[in-house]
């Protein structure tokens, strides 16, 4: 990680913020002292001594660095959409200190060599920590199982064919059993392909009007239900990505009550938007799974409030402007997310009264850290001798989302122009300040 504005060897003191780390039962006003990329001390009686920089965090939340377990960084091979450099710049711009990138690249990240390549490229050009989810099957084609052992040995933290679900039940069984034996999470993109042929948006009133082939809820639910049935006896760490249907929340809830090992994630757009956003053939509302109806949106918010959905993920999916300018059916799927996700989560979950700030921080830090095993490295927490991955948030700041201010290389967001509240003011990755809206650099 280059681009340091404050040298990691310097001593930095964050003073007077609300220290909020649910995993450490920490919620108090105090200071954090950082040196050599690690937290030296924190609390109400930190000996500031000879700090090189003092950062006033009065009125701000000082949280563990935010973690996004689902992003598309588009490298290798899709540099017209995003690179590891620009995708991670977008992440730190939005307050994220760690991201987990998906393997649907060109070529697919389906070997130890590819995992290693992404790791080296991230070390050279990344602005935040990059963890890799490697493919479950070769080329993500669902036909032959990928070398999962060696992918994990090379550093992959999760296994997924994201972009597609694993359709074949026998293959799913094989992959889940392999992941269970290795103790690594498997992340499923739940979509039965036979129910979604030619589909480009949610099947309903809007698709009927627009003359677009619909992607029904049941295509997600049927695969989720099958997977949970398989995992009942396998016991892998099964994670359902980007849930979109209210029915899926109920299915996941019941399975968790029954003791099936499973977690689920939801994205900002599914928490805030519905298929009405596709009106006028707006390709910035085209994503997979699709935006659904108000009752689904409410069920997803409630799923977070009830603790059924325990992970938030942007599914950051950059695409070049020319690609999104294609007619709706030909335009690629997905929207960018990391630059502006935080205030959208705040709007959907905190401002709506579904949860409070400490739970939101938990959902953005320790929960994804536990899912991906990053808590073993001390990520997702704030504690002495832990890595200094810290996000400082102004929970009251009102601002307007402007895609031209994004650090992502792409601009495909339906949230451009939205008035929001809450913003990452400082993003520190291993003691390096990677995003600074507090003017720390100018104080140095």
């Amino acid at each position, binding site marked *: 990680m280059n681009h340091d504005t404050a040298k990691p060897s310097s001593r930095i003191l964050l003073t007077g913020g609300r220290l909020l780390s649910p995993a450490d039962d920490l919620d108090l006003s105090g200071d954090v002292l950082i040196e050599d990329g690690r937290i030296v001390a924190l609390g109400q009686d930190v000996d500031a001594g000879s700090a090189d920089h003092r950062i006033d965090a009065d009125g701000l939340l000082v949280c563990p660095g935010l973690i996004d377990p689902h992003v598309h960084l588009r490298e290798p091979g899709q540099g017209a959409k995003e690179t590891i450099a620009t995708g991670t710049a977008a992440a730190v711009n939005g307050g994220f200190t760690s991201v987990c990138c998906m393997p649907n690249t060109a070529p697919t990240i389906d070997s130890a060599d590819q995992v290693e390549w992404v790791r080296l490229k991230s070390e050279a050009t990344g602005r935040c920590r990059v963890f890799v989810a490697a493919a479950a099957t070769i080329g993500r084609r669902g036909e032959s199982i990928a070398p999962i052992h060696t992918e994990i040995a090379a550093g992959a933290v999760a296994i997924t064919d994201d972009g597609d679900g694993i359709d074949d039940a026998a293959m799913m069984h094989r992959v889940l059993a392999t992941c269970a034996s290795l103790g690594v999470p498997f992340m499923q993109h739940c979509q039965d392909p036979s129910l979604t042929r030619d589909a480009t948006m949610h*099947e309903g009133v809007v698709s*009927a*009007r627009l*003359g677009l082939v619909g992607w029904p809820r049941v295509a997600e639910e049927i695969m989720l239900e099958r997977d949970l049935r398989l995992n009942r006896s396998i016991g892998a760490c099964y994670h359902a990505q980007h849930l979109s249907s209210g029915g899926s929340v109920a299915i996941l809830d019941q399975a968790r009550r029954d003791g099936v090992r499973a977690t689920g994630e939801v994205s900002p757009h599914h928490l805030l938007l519905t298929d009405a956003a596709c009106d006028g*053939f707006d390709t910035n509302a085209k994503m997979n799974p699709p935006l659904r109806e108000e009752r689904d949106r409410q069920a997803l918010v409630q799923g977070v409030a009830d603790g059924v959905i325990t992970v938030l993920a942007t599914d950051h999916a950059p695409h070049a402007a020319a690609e999104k300018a294609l*007619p709706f*059916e030909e335009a690629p799927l997905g929207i960018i997310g990391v630059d502006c996700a935080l205030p959208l989560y705040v709007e959907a979950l905190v401002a709506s009264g579904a949860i409070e700030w400490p739970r939101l921080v938990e959902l953005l830090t320790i929960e994804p850290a536990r899912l991906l095993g990053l808590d073993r490295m001390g990520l997702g927490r704030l504690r002495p001798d832990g890595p200094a991955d810290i996000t400082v948030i102004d929970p009251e700041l009102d601002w307007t989302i402007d895609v031209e201010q994004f650090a992502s290389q792409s601009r495909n967001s339906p949230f451009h122009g939205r008035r929001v509240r809450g913003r990452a003011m400082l993003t520190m990755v291993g003691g390096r300040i990677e995003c600074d809206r507090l003017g720390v650099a100018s104080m140095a």
Partner: protein
Amino acid sequence: MERTEVEAILDRAEALLPAVDGTRKATQIQESAVFGLVFLEDSTRTRLSFETAIHRLGQRAVAMTSTGSSTSKGESLVDTARNVAAMGVQGLVVRCRQSGGAARIADEVDVPVVNAGDGRHEHPTQGLLDAAALRSRLGSLEGRRILIVGDIGNSRVARSDIYSFTALGAAVTLVGPPSMVPWHLASLGHSIVVSHELDPVLDQADAVVTLRIQRERSSSGTVPSDYREGFGLTKDRCRNLRREVPILHPGPANRGVEIDDGVLEDASRCLVLDQVRHGVAVRMAVLERAMAGASG
């Protein structure tokens, strides 16, 4: 579209019918306008209909089709249309396989764009010409019940028919097997009902539009092999329609599937050729409006 707009187009089309029949010349809308016909999906009658309409208005048409053009080299829809517009044509008529494609082009070019059918979305001039043919036969569509039979979900004709018929005060029953007519299609407008059986609703009909089974747009296995038994307009079934009830088909027909030979050729009932005739007049009226809007 509002009722007044639909009626204005139909009234103008009616006035233009003598020009279509060659009994009178239409007044020219503009000196030497050239229209670009961008037809990127197979079409016979719609393209010829628009070309004829343009010629009857005393203008010229240049046409491009998908075979033998740059689209076969992978050029995108919008790029193709932009290039045709850059040749200085005064208007574009677009047929494409992408829903929303015509509107997408209209966003990108400075000349009027007429949608001649975009994917599964809409085929507005077909909707208008069907309404014109029906109005001329029935006098008025107010309070009439019109059955539309076939693969409604995949049909741009059905959507445009619904909009123009209901704008004129008609009620619409969408008929077909559940795989082709999902319940949520009733949301396409007021006074629309869905029926998964044809026979019980035949006696309500003041008119029947039967659609072509579109094998190019339906994924394999969605057309029931007994479609004709349940939904085909057979001679026997038509005996259960009142004698004066007209039958429309947008063409081209799959004879013996959605409509039988004898029905298609029953000139007292079947309006298919009348539809084609009204089609030229409606397209003249629409092109006039488009050009008037562009210069006004």
